[in-house]
């Protein structure tokens, strides 16, 4: 029954009945952020994240790497929404939650681009609940 309900919700969602203004991508490989946004995210990352996670995103003793096999080991199979929640509620570790919500989305976009996930025309926006259904998966 629960499964049926879930299918119904997803179906309605993709039909645009959920209230979303446009059809959302079903896969991280459809492109869920824009290049301009990733550029903004790169600047924000440099200012607020790089001091712990490194300018090349490979991390250090107290901060996990956000790139390549290390990133996929930690995040494969988990949703983009979960990653966003982690950023928004726990980062930067010395000032958690101190950035505007959209800046967290920009930083998330930069991390996705750094891991070769494709961009699209549309920006990721804060409060996008559908991100909880977009999984981080290898191609």
């Amino acid at each position, binding site marked *: 029954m629960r499964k049926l309900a879930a299918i119904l919700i997803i179906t309605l969602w993709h039909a645009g009945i959920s209230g979303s203004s446009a059809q959302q991508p079903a896969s991280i490989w459809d492109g869920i952020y824009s290049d301009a946004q990733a550029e903004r995210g790169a600047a924000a990352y440099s200012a607020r994240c790089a*001091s712990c996670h490194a300018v*090349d995103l490979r991390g250090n*003793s107290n901060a996990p790497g956000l790139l*390549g096999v290390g990133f996929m080991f930690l995040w494969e199979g988990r949703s983009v929404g979960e990653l966003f929640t982690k950023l928004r509620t726990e980062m930067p570790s010395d000032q958690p939650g101190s950035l505007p919500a959209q800046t967290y989305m920009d930083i998330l976009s930069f991390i996705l681009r750094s891991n070769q996930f494709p961009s699209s025309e549309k920006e990721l926006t804060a409060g996008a609940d559908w991100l909880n259904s977009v999984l981080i998966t290898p191609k």
Partner: protein
Amino acid sequence: MNKSALVRSSVACVGCSLLFLQLNLSAQIEEFTDIGDSELQNPAQGEWLHWRGGQNAWGYSELEQINTSNVGQLQLVWSWAMDDSGAGEAAPLVHAGMMFLPGPRGVIQALNAANGDLLWEYRPGITPAMEGSNAVALGAEQLGDALMPATAFAGVGRGVQKNIAIYGDRIFAATENASIVAIDARSGLLAWETPVADPALGYYYVAGPIVANGVLVTGINGCERYKEDVCFITGHDPASGEELWRTSTVARPDDPGGDSWGDLPLHLRAGGDAWVAGSYDPVTNLVYWGTAQAKPWARVVRGTDGEALYTNSTLALNPNTGVMEWYYQHLPGETHDMDEVFESVLIDVDGRPSLFKMGKLGILWQLDRVSGEYIKATDIGYQNLVNLNPVTGKVVYKDGMLPRIGKQLDFCPSTSGLKSWRAMAYSPQTSAMYIPIALNCELATFGPVEQVLGGGGTGPVRRVNYPHPDAGDNLGELLVLDIPSGEVKWRYRSRAPLNTAALTTAGSLVFIGDWNRYMYAFDADTGEKLWQTRVSTSAQGFPVSYMIDGVQYVALPAGNGGASWAALLPRELAPELTRPRSGNSMHVFALPTQARQD
């Protein structure tokens, strides 16, 4: 009055003010006397010249004005807000009535230790250099900066500056930009700065130097990434900043012990960071310095089952030559991020010069500090990763406890460790060690790294923390062990992690603070809590005690940041506890006049 006369007058007026200020402060600074080796070995009572009080790193003050009968009357004398630009883990020094206070990102402030007046401050990249200093010849990229160095890879983000050293008329510090600096102790001006390693390769310092037999000895950090060099400890000339020697903390392929890394080439031998300052014994003329675990953390990830010398060891170095006289590897081939890098406490037991050390696994080691020979080890009983042979000191991993990539392990402690940089203290009065402990466990799944230059690191770990089954809801413990028997004398548990080093005093007291902003004094003999206060943020750093003009002071640091004990565990395991987002600070207490005279 024409314009130029007005300007001259204004300048003169500013000059007057500065002169007045200088006169007020100069009396304090004039009392400064140079520190030599004899002063470091036998500091005047009431001075605090080494990050742990004395070269033996006892964390013990011989002062007894504040004692078990009057500590309840302690009052705040002054407090001081420090920069909030990074984690606060300050280990101040006190000499001639001046407190030298290391702050985040290389800032050092000299304060009147009796009333908290600022005497000078040194800000990297802002405070001028002394005339004739080599620092003026260095480019901006080589010099430290009050902001994060643009060249740094990583690791400097927390901005930690734990300890500093004093010698002659200078204060010495090691920077997040992988430089060592000398600062004039009277003026705060930069005397010299020596770049030691390339921060663009990931090198940085969090621990400062110690002075041993006239040599500055300093251990580097930031060695988890693969590069064409390894971690090391250096000796520098305090007068000139010239590097005298450099000893690797990792055995190179052709060195003795080089085969302990299997056939891994040099650039895949990572770790051995020396991120906690050491101790010095003038009788043996040896510096004792700990090294961190090999990187990546898990054997299967780093690609060798070997011992990985000289990681997770205590090294005994001649401070004049850098020659390693002996080493003792506590956990050969360590494979879960269980660091043994922490302080070495030098105690003579029944006439035998000994060294005591505890790592994340909570095993208290006793070594002979002349020979490095194993004497005794006491497992405090909270870890479930290894079996310890108490006769030989050998550790063997329990069945099923070696990590495999992608397979979840359940072990205690978590990788935060039972013991960490929060240093233990020894009291000769009670013949006991006072040890700050964090109690928790972890479900951990270790993942792979890329074995390429610039790659490596600690290795990714999927981590779920949970409370230690033996500790109920408590995350913190002050554990007191009899020396040398290792028997538990008493213990104090708290919901919040204990979050400072311990300080013992001849007043039969032990001072310590917790994450939940409390600072405490306990009866060192019985464990009775005799005093507590609450401060601006988590107690964090290295408490000290000193005396000026007949008044004993206790200085208790508070701070934010602080890595997993302070940033991760309380948030996950004690979410009802809160603290502000800022508040690095120093809080100094003394008895009221009447209580001092009773």
